């Protein structure tokens, strides 16, 4: 069974005649331990799709109009508030784009991680189970009571900070977020997300706000953690460069729809949808010499103002008149490869 199966998810902002469809019929699955990349330009529905997994898009104004999100086989859209709270952080954890903004500026980072532990690890302070398979060096004794629980929490916070590669965590837990660099803050965010030992880590552009060397470190950390903890990762990015390193499969989104879904290596080697091709051409290549980068003309159409038929048609280099007639289906052209373009085979 898949860890996550999103089926034909439709999400509107607003309702009735003013409804704007931000996510239109998105379907994909994530298996346990798999890394999926969600790629696309700004404003194409990546983040909203990702937040929907734990129903975090505020409703209203959002309105889930159709589809289902099966997490461990249970539909998130039908869950009660209590169940939602237990899966948030418990099964799905999030890491957001701006590490500085994701940490509460008025609390020490140790306290923020501890809060996450208190919510999802009531076992701490009791004899410790070790499901992730790495040894807790500061394992507390079996005695219970408030002091030992605090000690256990502290030890766990320090262990998590070590896990995400923060040097001298014993002193770092007393830092406020503003006393840390962006890379450190993002590591703290990841530590918070890992505190609850989630099955799925959703990383929403985790490296966009960081400089390139730190980006590489954070991605390497995520990759490493995935191997050690065996969790699945949904990585949202508009950087195709990191897709090849990280992803098992890639979903390319455009204007609220998935236009191509394929194993990462094949997609990078041979993109099929014209939009994916255009995206790839917009990435500078080291070997390419001094050619001008080719930009995609125009902008992503605004929600509520989609063109009829294929939404990419107005910007598509191979568009034909019939493209504007109806929205093409997502067709499986090869096993595991889906494309939303009838002319994918065109030269």
């Amino acid at each position, binding site marked *: 069974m898949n860890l996550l199966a999103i089926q034909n998810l439709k999400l509107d902002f607003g309702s009735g005649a003013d409804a704007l469809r931000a996510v239109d019929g998105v379907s994909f699955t994530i298996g346990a331990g798999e890394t999926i990349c969600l790629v696309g330009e700004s404003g194409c529905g990546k983040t909203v799709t990702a*937040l929907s997994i*734990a129903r*975090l898009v505020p409703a*209203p104004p959002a309105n889930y109009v159709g589809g289902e999100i099966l997490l461990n086989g249970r539909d998130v859209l039908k869950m009660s508030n209590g169940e*939602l*709270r*237990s*899966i*948030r*952080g*418990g099964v*799905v*954890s*999030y890491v*957001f*784009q*701006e590490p500085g*903004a*994701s*940490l*509460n*500026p*008025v*609390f020490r980072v140790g306290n923020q991680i501890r*809060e*996450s532990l208190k*919510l*999802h690890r009531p076992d701490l302070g009791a004899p410790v189970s070790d499901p992730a398979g790495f040894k807790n060096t500061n394992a507390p004794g079996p005695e219970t009571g408030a002091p030992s629980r605090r000690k256990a929490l502290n030890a766990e916070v320090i262990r998590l900070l070590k896990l995400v590669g923060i040097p001298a965590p014993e002193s770092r837990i007393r830092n406020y977020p503003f006393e840390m660099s962006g890379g450190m803050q993002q590591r703290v*965010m990841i530590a*918070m997300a890992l505190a*609850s030992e989630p099955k799925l880590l959703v990383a929403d552009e985790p490296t966009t706000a960081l400089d390139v060397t730190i980006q590489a470190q954070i991605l390497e950390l995520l990759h490493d953690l995935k191997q050690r903890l065996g969790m699945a990762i949904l990585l949202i990015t508009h950087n195709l460069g990191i897709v090849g390193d990280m992803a098992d499969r890639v979903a390319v989104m455009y204007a609220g729809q998935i236009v191509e879904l394929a194993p990462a290596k094949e997609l990078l080697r041979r993109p099929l949808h014209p939009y994916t091709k255009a995206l790839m051409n917009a990435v500078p290549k080291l070997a390419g010499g001094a050619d001008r980068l080719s930009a995609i003309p125009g902008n992503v159409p605004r929600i509520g103002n989609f063109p009829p038929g294929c939404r990419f048609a107005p910007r598509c280099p191979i568009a034909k008149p019939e493209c504007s007639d109806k929205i093409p289906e997502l067709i499986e052209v090869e096993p595991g490869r889906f494309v939303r373009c009838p002319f994918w085979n065109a030269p």
Partner: protein
Amino acid sequence: MAGGIILIFLYAVALLAGFIAPYGYNRIENNSFFHPPVWPRLHGFHLVVPRSEELPGDFNYREIPGDTRPLRFFVHGEQYKLLGFIPASIHLFGTGDDNYPVYLIGADQFGRDVFSRILYGSQISLSIGIIGILLSFTFGMMIGGISGYFAGTTDVIIMRLCELIMSIPALYLIISLRATFPPGMSSSQIYAMIVVILSFIGWASMARVIRGMTLSLREQQFVLAARALGQTHLKVIVRHILPNTFSYVIVAATLSVPYYILGEVVLSFLGVGIQEPQASWGNMLTAAEDVQYLQNYPWLLAPSAAIFITVLAFNFLGDGLRDAADTKS
């Protein structure tokens, strides 16, 4: 920060009122109605207190030359409870002889020491400000936080309620609320009632500001991050949103304490607050209503000086805190 130092001093004095005050707030002396201030003076190496005799007529007093008693420190006097629960009878200063009273700022129309009554009154007047602020700001922050966080219909209903309360002139509201409480309450009941009334009026404006700040804070990513961790709405509000408003709240609280102190003064002055013989700065000023009293016995106005100093100190402290919290300058 001079304001802060003055306030620390005032609150320390209020806490130790029983020890510092030479007399109890309720000690009536029949032959010293409207006794003028008596200051100890230096005589040789001792501070001495002169004795006055009452002249016939309109409460006139004349000092008896040469008839003095040395002022002594840590004298035994009336029983009182230090900090409200430790029984004690040592006073900071006094003569130990009732015929040689020390009235630093005179005596009132019942022969009670005004200085002692100001000290005892400060216990009520100063604590009402703090407790009132705690109550109304806690309430205002919770309501404002809920209103801003949930927005929509909740917000509309709560904000209209706030506007309703704010649109009624405060003084009328105070007096009409007072009328809803039964007469013949004990002094501690009256004290609680004043706090409740003043807080009931104060929370609305606080709630409005907090609601505005919450509206912007709820869009911050750390709120989303907290929710993504599975925090309940209430915890997100209390643990994540409200602490981010503290720098404003502390300044606003400091600047609003004077309104609570003045509110108590107004209620007591109008005779619906703290009742005699209990001392509060407001009801002590009731005696100063009479123009004749003011002309002849101006020391009855002393509580107003205490109010003035306190209010000014709070404003200075608030201004100082505001400058300190303003990171832009």
